[in-house]
């Protein structure tokens, strides 16, 4: 009798384990789907994985917003610690790094033509190409002019 009950319990436990495994597999699948979606588009994996982990309850937007808000605080403290003597190089280097917008230009230039959307894709290529040139002027110009300035700051000999 006792053994029968134990057997029953074990079976129930096995069922539960199976259900848990099933759930885990479903979650993994969901994560995989999200990851695939993200991979097919731009990089959105961090948000998507967290999205899946939270059971889909939290939108990736919230994660981006969190990063954004925290980065504003980081920027606030980092910039206050910049010495006033270097405020001009600060402006030119922030100029250079904001040209990381070049990633958007690269995506637009590199996109493959979608059937039925050839005209739109051609426009995107054009916009992306001009944006790429502008951003690269800024990247090279910004970093080089900053290093030229910084090379001039010397200590008393």
């Amino acid at each position, binding site marked *: 009798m006792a053994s029968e009950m134990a057997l029953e319990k074990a079976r129930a436990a096995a069922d539960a384990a199976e259900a848990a495994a099933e759930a885990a597999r479903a979650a993994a699948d969901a994560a995989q789907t999200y990851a695939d979606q*993200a*991979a097919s588009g*731009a*990089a*959105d994996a*961090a948000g998507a994985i967290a999205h899946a982990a939270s059971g889909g309850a939290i939108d990736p937007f919230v994660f*981006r917003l969190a*990063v*954004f808000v925290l*980065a504003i605080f*980081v*920027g*606030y403290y980092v910039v206050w610690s910049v010495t*006033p*003597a*270097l*405020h*001009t*190089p*600060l*402006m*030119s280097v922030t*100029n250079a*790094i904001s*040209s*990381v*917008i*070049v*990633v958007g230009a*690269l995506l*637009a*230039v*590199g996109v493959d033509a*979608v059937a039925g959307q050839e005209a739109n894709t051609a*426009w*995107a290529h054009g*916009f992306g190409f001009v*944006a*790429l*040139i*502008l*951003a*690269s*002027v*800024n*990247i*090279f110009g*910004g*970093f*080089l*002019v*900053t290093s030229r*300035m*910084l090379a*001039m*700051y*010397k*200590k*008393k*000999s």
Partner: protein
Amino acid sequence: MTANIAAFLYLVSGVLFILALRGLSHPTTSRQGNFFGMIGMAIAILTTLGLAVPSGSGWVLIVLGLAIGGGIGAYIARSIPMTAMPQLVAAFHSLVGLAAVLVAAGAIYAPEAFGIGEVGSIHAQALIESSLGVAIGAITFTGSVIAFLKLDGRMSGKPILLPGRHVINIALAAAIVILIVALAMTESHTVFWLIVILSLVFGGLLIVPIGGADMPVVISMLNSYSGWAAAGIGFTLGNMALIITGALVGSSGAILSYIMCKGMNRSFVSVILGGFGGETAAAAGGGVEERPVKQGAAEDAAYLMKNASKVIIVPGYGMAVAQAQHALREMADKLKAEGVEVKYAIHPVAGRMPGHMNVLLAEANVPYDEVFELEDINSEFAQADVAYVIGANDVTNPAARDDPTSPIFGMPILDVDKAKTVLFVKRGMGSGYAGIQNELFFLDQTMMLFGDAKKMTEQIVKAM
């Protein structure tokens, strides 16, 4: 490359950008910081190329674009004179703004490349994020172009006041908001371009009424805007590097604007509303100053400084205009050879952009540890034998400290009037940007040296 690795690498490049700014806390670490920034940028570009591998023709365009843009950028960076730095920074801001507009246009025309849906069914959220980026980007573009023209002297630095400009601006801002909502609902390309056009007009109207002397605030503010525009696009792309960078640049520009406003004792709102420097200058031009001033020659100045034990040099925008920094360094070298202690005092709003004077002095090989900020050196004027004011004016006006009726009352100033002798290099008796008379000129210990800042300094060097 998987999306996970890509997201991680974007994070790394964001962190490297933070380190780039962190390095600027001291001149010795700054070069390393700049190097971190370059690595961060390289990582971001390579990651994007690895994640969304371009087609064959795409590669050609990308290499071509990088080569053209990089070539132009490198050429400008090498050939630009240091005195032209404010207008160069303004021009670079305009490029970021325009690039943001174009990237968003690319996203609207080829949304599948950005993972935000397909043409006709782009997520509303992505549309709002990118249209915010577009609006701020377009404002940054025309605003920076106007700032560039003013700083480069191709457009009058005087504020240009349109009648009813506040009403026009508010109407434009409201129209842009309504259009953004309309775009989110319809995804119409026409509405998108309307947002671009209205924002371009808005950006121009916003900067046109702001006078040349307020440019330090404007240029920092546009710096901030270019960051927010990048962040808007970063949200659309879900790209960590862009979001982090946008936030960093946005807060950096905002802090610089705040420091500049404080340096002028003006509120940010009053700067934005514009008009400062125009009317007041005209009003002050009415009364001709009758009081006598003491005038001196280069020889007198040379004699006074040679026999001093401590000289504090106060440079301003006039030094930049006259390119007098090299002559100034020569003068300081001669004085140091005579055993005179020489220091430089920099007001936060001296020049046309934050840190403008420091860069010019560094260019002339003035060691950075001889250059001091207002709060670090102000107490030393009382022990100085000579204060040599070259190209600065309003930032030395004791009225800002003593006269509550003065329009610049409350503005922090360099206490040059506490020095035993004040040598004031100036072209003529005209007033500074605030359009008010400087009480300093009429003090007993002040000697006016009329002439071009560079020529006068060279004559002093010769007379030593």
